[in-house]
C-alpha cells in the first residue's frame, strides 16, 4: 500500500516544479537593480562641464546645506525627454537640480537642453559611467535625493511621473 503512494511521488514533484516554472514565467521577477548606496555620502567625484555655459559637478557641491536632486540622464535617452516637464516643474517649485550626463557629447547635451529646457544648476559629464557605477545606478534616467550634508537618501529609478512631484518636494522640504 505504501509503495503505491511512493510511485506517485516523482509525479507530484514534477507537478510542483512545473507549477513553479509556470508561475515565474507568468509573473516575471522585478529586474530593476536598486542601488545599495543609500543613506551613504555621495562618492567623491569631480566631473567636467557636460556642455558650454553650464558648470560641471563635483561631490563637494552637493554638501552645501540645501537638499537637492541629482538627475542621472543622457541626451540619447528617450525616456529622459518624457521626464523633462516634471524636472521643469520641480525646478519651478524651487528644487535645486544637478545633472550627471552619461556617455554624452557637449553638442548633444546642448541640443537636449535647447529642446527640453534646462532645469539644471550644474551638469557633470560622466563619459565612462564611472560616477554612475560609484552610485550603484544601472540606467537612465535615475534620480537621487541628496540631503544638505551630501548624503543620498533615496534613489528613483526610471522617469519621475507627475504624481511623484509633490511627494519629492515634500521629502526634500522635510530634509531641510
Amino acid at each position, binding site marked *: 500500500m505504501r509503495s503505491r503512494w511512493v510511485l506517485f511521488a516523482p509525479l507530484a514533484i514534477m507537478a510542483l516544479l512545473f507549477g513553479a516554472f509556470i508561475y*515565474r514565467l507568468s509573473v*516575471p521577477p522585478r*529586474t530593476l537593480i536598486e*542601488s545599495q548606496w543609500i543613506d551613504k555620502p555621495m562618492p567623491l567625484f569631480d566631473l567636467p562641464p557636460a556642455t558650454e555655459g553650464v558648470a560641471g559637478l563635483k561631490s563637494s557641491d552637493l554638501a552645501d546645506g540645501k537638499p537637492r536632486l541629482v538627475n542621472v540622464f543622457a541626451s540619447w535617452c528617450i525616456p529622459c525627454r518624457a521626464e523633462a516637464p516634471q524636472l521643469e516643474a520641480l525646478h519651478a517649485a524651487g528644487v535645486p537640480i544637478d545633472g550627471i550626463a552619461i556617455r*554624452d557629447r557637449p553638442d548633444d547635451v546642448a541640443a537636449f537642453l535647447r529642446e527640453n529646457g534646462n532645469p539644471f544648476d550644474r551638469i557633470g559629464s560622466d563619459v*565612462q559611467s564611472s560616477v554612475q557605477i560609484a552610485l550603484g545606478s*544601472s540606467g537612465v534616467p535615475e534620480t537621487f535625493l541628496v540631503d544638505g550634508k551630501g548624503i543620498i537618501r533615496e534613489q528613483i529609478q526610471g522617469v519621475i511621473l507627475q504624481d511623484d512631484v509633490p511627494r519629492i518636494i515634500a521629502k526634500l522640504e522635510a530634509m531641510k
Partner: protein
Amino acid sequence: MRGRLFLAAILALFAAPLAAQDRLPPAPYAYQQLADPAKEAKAKALMETLRCLVCQGQSIADSDAPLAGDMRHEVRTKIAAGESPDAIRKWLVARYGNWVSYDPPFDGATALLWLAPLLFLAVGLWLAFGRLRGGGGEES
C-alpha cells in the same frame, strides 16, 4: 548550478532591450587588455564573475552593452592600480548588492542553493540503501 542556469535563461527572456544609442566610443579599457598578462588574467577572471546590469543574463566579460564596457574599464583600471579582485567585488556589491556577483555568499537567502545538492545526495543515498535492503529482503 541548474537553478542558476535556469534563472539566467529566464532573466535573458525578460531582459529589456538596451537603449544603446549613445555616440561615444567605448572606454579605453572596455575592449583593450592590460599590458601586464598577470594583471589581465586577474581582471578577466573577475569580469567573468560579475553580472552585467543591463543585460542581466550575461557577465560583463560577455556583454557588449556600453555599461558593461564601462564596468570592464572600471575593473581593469582598478586592477592596474593594484586593487585586489576581492576588494573590487566588495566595492561593487556595496553598490549593487550580491546581485552583481556570480559568486553568491552563503547566507539566509542562498542557503538552499548551496545545501540542496547535499540534501539531494542524502535523499538519494536513503533511497538507494532502502532499495538494496528491500531487494535483499525479497530474495530471501
